[in-house]
């Protein structure tokens, strides 16, 4: 019997005391990692809900810090700015990436490989390196310190175009042929046949764009100056700078509020987000 034991499938071996102890140890490590990962988040929420009164130092549980964050900064405007910038970046990237990806996948034209190669090459250029000339361009266009300064340069997306090209390559060619035979022109073939089928791919591009632009800090720091044009992360850092260490709960209430849309997207779109983030690894 002992000689046969190692040959048994893995799940049967888990019942031995040694294996059970191993499973318990593994779970313990995973639970510790979970605590370290979620700890700061839980602390943030709890602290935002338990502000201490200035002067007396008494803890007053409730939503007063959430009220304060609207009183201390124009939080509604920050939120609206974030929604506008992120929303337009998301929509712009989804549409332009789908169109360019379709052409690169489905239409043969001279220089296509060159165009595709050039688009891929821009992925290697870090945004921080082009920021000085982009800043000049934006100034030259008369857009400095506007929300458009954040949106316009962020619409063309090399990675999104790459993803959409791969997506269109996976769609059957017969559909387009059938549409052509039925008399549909190239525009109709795209808009009524391919674009609807590409929506899952576009969702990945959109969710990636949301995750990036909702959270971005570097470009807003450079391209927007007045607080009325800030988006959430920059606005919260500015708020913290203005308040000092006095009102921890107020700043954290802002952090919690800014996390909510990201959390909603995480809950409904975790799978496309996961696929999008790791898609770069399999190219």
């Amino acid at each position, binding site marked *: 019997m002992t000689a046969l034991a190692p040959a048994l499938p893995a799940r049967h071996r888990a019942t031995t005391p040694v294996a059970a102890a191993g499973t318990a140890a*593994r779970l313990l490590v995973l639970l510790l990692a979970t605590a370290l990962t979620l700890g700061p988040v839980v602390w943030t929420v709890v602290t935002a809900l338990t502000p201490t009164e200035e002067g007396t130092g008494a803890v007053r549980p409730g939503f007063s810090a959430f009220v304060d964050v609207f009183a201390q900064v124009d939080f509604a405007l920050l939120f609206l700015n974030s929604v506008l910038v992120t929303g337009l970046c998301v929509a712009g990237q989804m549409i332009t990436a789908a169109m360019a990806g379709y052409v690169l*996948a489905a239409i043969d034209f001279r220089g296509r490989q060159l165009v595709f190669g050039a688009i891929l090459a821009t992925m290697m250029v870090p945004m921080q390196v082009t920021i*000085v000339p982009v800043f000049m361009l934006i100034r030259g266009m008369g857009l400095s310190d506007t929300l458009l300064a954040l949106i316009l340069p962020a619409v063309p997306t090399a990675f999104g175009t790459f993803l959409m090209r791969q997506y269109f390559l996976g769609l059957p060619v017969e559909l387009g042929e059938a549409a052509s035979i039925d008399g549909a022109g190239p525009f109709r073939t795209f808009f009524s046949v391919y674009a609807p089928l590409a929506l899952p791919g576009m969702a990945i591009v959109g969710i990636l764009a949301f995750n990036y632009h909702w959270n971005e800090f570097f470009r807003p720091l450079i391209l927007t100056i007045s607080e009325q044009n800030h988006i*959430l992360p920059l606005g919260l850092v500015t708020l913290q700078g203005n308040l000092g260490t006095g009102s921890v709960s107020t700043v954290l209430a802002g952090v919690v509020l800014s996390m909510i849309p990201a959390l909603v997207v995480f809950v409904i779109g975790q799978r496309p987000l996961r696929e999008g983030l*790791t898609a770069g*690894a399999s190219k």
Partner: protein
Amino acid sequence: MTTLGTAAPLAADRPAGTSADPAPRTPTGTPTAGRRLVAALFLAPTVLGLGIFTFVPILASIGLSFFRWDVITAPEFVGLANFADLVTDPTVRRSFLNTFGFVAVAVVLQLVVALGLAVLVQSRLPGWLRVVFRSVFFFPLILSAASVSLVMAYLFNEDFGAVNAVLRTLGLGDVPWLTTGPGAAAVVVMVYVWQNFGFSFLLFLGGLSSIPKEVDEASAIDGATAGRRFRLVTLPLLSPTLLVASVMAMISALQIFDQPYVLTRGGPGDTTRTAVMVIYESAFQQLQFGRASAIGIVLTCVIVAVTALQFRLSRRYVHYQ
């Protein structure tokens, strides 16, 4: 043609004339006038956009890096002086050394934590628990690095922070986290890894699940211990993922800005100042646009070199199944 999706079903990717079809498939393959118009119109936003906001800027940056320019007075050609700053200017030199040191420590830590947790999650666990842990470790990726750094600045506060409160109850005393060089550097590394290990974790989870169970089981039957199986079976089969995960982690770590900017503003002294922070400060605080460009160009070269190394290594050392 061969590099562009040889197995792709869309007609344009089939070599014209070499297919078994007797007649060329005009409807989708050959660019008619209408299709050419669609191609031009659909590509225009992306191609023009990337041209204006990436291609022209990178060329402008290369040009600017040879000049001294403060926007107010005329640009002055200074040759390689801005690049010499990398060696001669103590702050610039320090920021590059900091960045490379940070990349080395943070990437190794991130990969070790991610791989360890991925192996644990992939091992005999009920399916629902696997999904829970995957969601948990993925969660920090959806947060803003600036907001996370705000929160962590409170947690690592020397006097009031929760981290030192815990250490005090454990009898480990107060750690001067953000007020000393090593402490601040450690916090930047920890905060960065806390937020980013989930990305490598996802890659490893994908890589591990693509290793056939039979391989591991066969070596177990042959009497290999768990440690030996991991080292001699799992790790070699995981090497494509390992390479991609380390390169992607390096490229992202080289560009670190948000965490040190919010947590330490580069201090104390220059101890946590990174290359991108010096780009920002040179350009937008000291109006030294040429120097900022030179630092950016060097950083881009490092990133391109890391990417090129990935391609070379993947051809020579990586085991594909």
